[in-house]
């Protein structure tokens, strides 16, 4: 967590995560280079460079596929949550691999003295009206620009500066980048490559990400169903014992944001379900050492008033609670962040 923002704090988990990532990428690229060179031995320097272009390009696509799968996977199964924890490092590494792909592509053009030809191709406007023959390099350049912006704004400084809502909206552009990469390959390498590898890689990767997002979306839609309300509009949560100890039940007002109602022994408190860090789902976390802990990155808040422990300054909105006819009820109108509002049952 942060007091404003601070330099990256390395933990053993982050080091292991990054180490495994770099190892996996290195193994994939080395395997690709070896297998491709054996199947189709390079005849000259240009074909050798092309193998590197394809190795780093396909690695970028696979990494984007994995990154986009982590979100829905962790919504569908909590065991994937540790992958989410360090996803930004994964993203920056993907940008580095994409940058190497771009560097080898430029090297290829330089080696055949083709950069002026590329520039002419990119400004040959009638080609933009074609489907087969569309300047696919332009799609790759656009995708790379998005990855560059996302990598440059991945630090917590930008998250704090832009606010979590704007930052998350900006980072939705990754979907656009993924679509651009798909079409960059489909209108580029796929037009000349006659092996089964490329269509399988593209089709399989895209189908996987799509199915996961649709499944996770359906599940979230069910969770957004409004909670029953009493006559005065308060949301009926249920009996105190229906809230698991140290955990939460999530309730939703019609058209409103989710509210996490936590129970810590005999004490019950209601917080906004949006973590102040990245709008993570607080209610899917648990109470650790007396603090409500976000499942995404471990940000912590006091149940009593939604304030982060000192010296941190983050605060969550709280909600008024009451016990009526043996059921806990919560006011859908939030209190100002940091307002104490718990009840004993």
């Amino acid at each position, binding site marked *: 967590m942060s007091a404003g923002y601070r330099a990256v704090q390395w933990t053993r988990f982050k080091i292991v995560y990054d180490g495994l990532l770099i190892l996996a990428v290195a193994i994939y690229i080395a395997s690709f280079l070896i297998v491709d060179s054996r199947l189709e031995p390079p*005849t000259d320097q240009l074909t050798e460079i092309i193998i590197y272009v394809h190795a780093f390009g396909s690695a970028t696509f696979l990494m984007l596929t994995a990154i986009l799968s982590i979100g829905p996977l962790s919504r569908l199964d909590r065991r994937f949550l540790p992958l989410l924890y360090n996803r930004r490092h994964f993203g920056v590494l993907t940008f580095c691999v994409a940058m190497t792909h771009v560097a080898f592509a430029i090297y290829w053009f330089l080696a055949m003295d083709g950069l002026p030809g590329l520039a002419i191709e990119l400004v040959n406007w009638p080609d933009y009206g074609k489907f*087969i023959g569309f300047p696919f390099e332009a799609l790759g350049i656009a995708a790379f620009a998005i990855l560059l912006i996302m990598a440059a704004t991945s630090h917590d400084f930008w998250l704090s500066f832009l606010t979590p*809502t704007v930052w998350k909206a900006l980072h939705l552009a990754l979907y656009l980048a993924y679509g651009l990469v798909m079409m960059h390959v489909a209108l*580029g390498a796929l*037009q000349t490559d*006659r092996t089964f590898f490329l269509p399988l890689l593209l089709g399989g990767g895209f189908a996987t990400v799509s199915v996961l997002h649709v499944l996770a979306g359906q599940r*979230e839609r069910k969770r*957004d169903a409004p909670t029953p309300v009493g006559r005065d509009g308060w949301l009926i949560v249920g009996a105190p014992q229906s809230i698991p100890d140290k955990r939460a039940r999530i309730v939703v007002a019609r058209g409103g*944001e989710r509210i996490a109602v936590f129970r810590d022994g005999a004490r019950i408190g209601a917080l906004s379900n949006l973590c102040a860090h990245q709008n993570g789902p607080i209610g899917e976390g648990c109470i650790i050492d007396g603090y409500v802990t976000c499942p995404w990155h471990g940000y912590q808040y006091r149940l009593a008033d939604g304030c982060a422990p000192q010296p941190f300054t983050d605060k969550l909105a709280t909600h008024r609670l009451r016990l009526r006819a043996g059921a806990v009820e919560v006011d859908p109108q939030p209190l100002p962040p940091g307002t104490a509002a718990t009840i004993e049952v």
Partner: protein
Amino acid sequence: MTRTHRMIHRALWPALIIIVALGFTLALALRLPPAEEAPPVAQTQPSTSHP
């Protein structure tokens, strides 16, 4: 995630799936047949096929 963010997700994905799946299928279906085998040339000739 905020409610708006989830709604954008749910609207964006089906649209992206349809557009990209259509584009990918068309790119696969409309690709030109492979060029006929060129007569053997000197091995020193550099390859100029696009990366």
